[in-house]
Structure formats: C-alpha cells, structure tokens
C-alpha cells in the first residue's frame, strides 16, 4: 500500500546508522520508556512516516535538540519532528492553558494592532526614530496570565532589557505593530497562523537595522525561520550578544552572588550563544557555578511550546531543579521567560519538596548588579 503521508526530512537523515545515541541521551526517553527518537528516524527511513505521525510520538518530543547535538552523523531529528507535526493533524496536540492562549488567534487578523508601549515602566527611555528595535515578544501576555499565580517577573523583563540598553547608551524603538513571532505555532504545526503573523511582522521589521530580543524563542524564530522561509535579511541579536559589545559602559555596583546559568535550548543549542551571557554576568560581579549538565548538554525546562505539561515532563523539571540545587548557587538565571514560568510553577507546587533557589531572568540579574 502506498503511503499518502510524507515527511519532509533534512538532508542528512539517510545517513542514520541506528546507533541509538539519540534515544540514550533523550531526557524524554528516560521518563517515558516507549518514546525513542531512533525509532522515528527508522520508520521514516523504511518508508512509513505515517507511523511517526499517527503514533503521536512526534508530539512527545521536547524539540530540545540534545539528540542532534550528540548525533555522530548530524541527522536532523528535530527538523523531522517539526515536519511530522506540520504534516500530521493540523495543530493537534496537548497544549497547556490552551483555553487562555486562544487569544493568539485574534492576533492573526491584520486589522488589530496590539498596543505594547503602555505596558512599559515610566523610567525606561524609548525612541521611535531609533534604528534599533526591541522585539518584546509575548511578555505582556504572560505578565497578565502568570504574574500573580506563579510569581513571574512579567513586564519586569522587558523593562530591564530596555534599562540595560539605556545604560549602554541606546534608546531602542518599540513597535506598536508588533505581533507574536509565531514560534510556538510553528513548532506545533499551525503554519497558517505562523505565516500570517510573520508576514505582518516582516512589513515593519525590515525597516530596522538591528533587532534586539530578550526571548530566546523570538531570537531563533526571527533570525532563522523568518530569514529562511521568507528570504528576509534581518539582523537579529539576543540582548546578551548585543550588550557584549558595550560591556565597558556597564558599571557594576559591587553586588556579589553565587549564580548558576540555565542554557535554554533555543539560545544555547539552537543559536550557540553560550559565552556572551556568562561573560556579562561575571563582568557584573556574579560568580558562576556550572550545573552538572551545562552548555550544549543542558537539560530542557520540560515544557517547550506549552506542549505536554504532564507528569512525565514534570520529572524533567524536577531533575533540572535538582541539578541547580546541587551547585549550591543562590540564584538560577534563565534567559527564557517560559523556562522561568515552568520552573517557578514547580516551585510553588505544594506537593513538591522545597526548592530553595531563586529563579531570576538574565536581564533582571544584570540590572540588579548595575550601578545607576
């Protein structure tokens, strides 16, 4: 029988020699024994991609990229999962808070413009004519939904990013036309939404010389997916990459603390930004102690794209917190707002043991050590 389903695969997939290092390293395979990345590649290779799609195993994947990092033959497993999701049931997956996140669909219309400036604190300086744009991402929405419930920093992240840019002598622009970057929808296979918001975003993004993001997911989507899919030539930088050039202008106030840095998957493994945040943190007076799994081996926070927030993935989050506690650091610094939400959500869970470590955003940590 000829299979109707087909998966667009990366060019290296046929190189796979089934060594199963991907299944061995996979953090999800440890908590969900039936899930094997190797089997997904195998089924695709022998011409049964529908098995990957129908079994739902593509939805179990965290898309954290740890398997690709270890693969000796550079097989694009994450890319395979992504296209399996896009070919399969349109947008079918177990999304946490999906009822609340239904508001994203309103944004796909080109008739509504989200207003972002009014969320900002009064002391930050923005300039509409600047050629540097700060792309805020979903922080205002997460602020509304999660600030009270999980003690999330919320708009503080966006304010602090602009404060850091101000300290470096830059007044960035903030666009009122900005929509969601579409990262989650792209990775959940909802291409329809992604294409709509991407086209609307690209209309104004191309007017700016540099785009600075504080969110690793926005960073990856704007820098890679927008440029690849739509042929745009955006110059996108993560705030840590951008600030490294202005490191001399940032004066530390002598605050000392022992911290550990969580490499979120989009910033670390996908974009290979490891050194810049660490350099900035140590310049500002923080002492960095590394977790057992750090840099390209870093463990995922457990719930990427809000998919599969369940008991299995909770185990991954517990492991992450344990890793952080073992370092003896006072603060775990994460560059990603979503990682912060997921980990703080575990912290406030009353059935969990006490995880006595403060979780802080990367930009907040820098601003706290900044003398002003």
């Amino acid at each position, binding site marked *: 029988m000829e299979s109707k389903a087909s998966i667009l695969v990366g060019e290296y997939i046929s190189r796979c020699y089934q060594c199963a290092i991907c299944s061995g390293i996979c953090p999800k395979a440890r908590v969900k024994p039936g899930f094997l990345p190797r089997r997904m590649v195998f089924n695709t290779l022998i011409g049964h991609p529908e098995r990957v799609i129908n079994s739902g195993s593509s939805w179990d994947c965290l898309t954290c990229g740890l398997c690709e990092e270890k693969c000796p033959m550079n097989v694009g497993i994450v890319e395979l999962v992504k296209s399996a999701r896009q070919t399969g049931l349109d947008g079918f997956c177990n999304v946490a808070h999906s*009822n609340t996140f239904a508001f994203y669909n309103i*944004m796909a219309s080109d008739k*509504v413009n989200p207003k972002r400036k009014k969320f900002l604190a009064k002391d930050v300086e923005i300039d509409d004519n600047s050629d540097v744009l700060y792309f805020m991402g979903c922080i205002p929405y997460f602020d509304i939904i999660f600030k009270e419930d999980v003690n999330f920093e919320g708009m503080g992240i966006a304010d602090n990013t602009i404060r850091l840019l101000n300290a470096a002598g830059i007044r960035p622009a903030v666009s009122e036309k900005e929509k969601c970057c579409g990262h989650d929808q792209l990775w959940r296979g909802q291409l329809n939404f992604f294409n709509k918001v991407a086209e609307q975003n690209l209309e104004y993004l191309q007017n700016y010389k540099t785009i600075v993001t504080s969110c690793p997911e926005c960073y990856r989507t704007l820098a890679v997916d927008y440029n690849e899919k739509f042929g745009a030539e955006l110059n996108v930088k993560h705030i840590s990459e951008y600030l490294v050039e202005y490191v001399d202008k940032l004066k530390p106030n002598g605050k000392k603390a022992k911290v550990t840095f969580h490499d979120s998957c989009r910033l670390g493994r996908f974009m290979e930004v490891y050194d810049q945040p660490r350099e900035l943190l140590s310049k500002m007076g923080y002492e960095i102690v590394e977790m057992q799994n750090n840099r390209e081996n870093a463990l995922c926070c457990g719930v990427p794209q809000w998919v599969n927030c369940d008991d299995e993935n909770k185990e991954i989050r517990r492991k992450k917190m344990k890793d952080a506690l073992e370092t003896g650091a006072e603060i775990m610094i994460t560059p990603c707002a979503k990682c912060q939400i997921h980990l703080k959500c575990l912290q406030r869970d009353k059935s969990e043991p006490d995880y006595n470590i403060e979780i802080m955003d990367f930009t907040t940590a820098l601003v706290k050590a900044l003398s002003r």
Partner: protein
Amino acid sequence: MTFEPKAVVFACNWCSYAGADLAGVSRMQYPPTVRIVRTMCSGRFDPEFAFRAFEKGIDGVLVLGCHPGDCHYREGNLKTEKKVEMTRKLLEAVGVDPRRFRLEWVSASEGGRFAKLVEEFTNTLKELGPNPVRR
C-alpha cells in the same frame, strides 16, 4: 444599511437566564442584538469562549451571573470575576476594545435590568462599530 451589532450573552442558569426569561414573559422590549447561551453557572465561562467569539467576528460578549454572595454554587461567580478580569486585559493587549466585553450581575427577579443592560450594551456596540477582526 445601518449597522446592527451582534453579541453573545453567557447567562447563568439560576439567576441571569431566569432574569432574561422574566424580561421575555413580562414582554419587555429590548433590541434583538443578543444571542443567549445558557451555562449552569457563570463560572463555566472560559476565556476561550470570548476569544473564539471575537476571532469569528462577534461585536460584543456579555457575561451575566448571580450577584456576589448569591451564587447557586457558593463561589462560582467570584471565579468568573477573576477570569473575566484576565480576559479583558488580554483582549486589550491584543487590540480588541475592552468595552466590547462586559461582566454584569443580574438576578432572577431583575428582568427590567436585563432589558436595560442589553439596550445599553447595544448602544455601546453601535458607537464602536463593527468588530475590526471580522473579515
């Protein structure tokens, strides 16, 4: 042609739906703007209801429940209040006018109040014009 707004009302079974019923049996006049959806409690209201409705192009959403303290399920309407607050903020943040979305308390004996509310809401919607999301 003049603009006739369309709105959806989520009314709780014990107070507001009975209130709307009373408005009907007492033959009170109110504009034919609203489509009433009965929920067992206003606490059944979910942010998704409003988001989906606005996405499909509705002009307004009205959530009606029992007065605080009168809830048939003790505290359902207090939960609604929290959810509605969040929904309103999110709607504003994505660019939908928050005046299109309201929470009101209507008890079973307040048929007149229901009719008045619908009229008021219709006037607000007429002022605001059609929902921009509508294609």
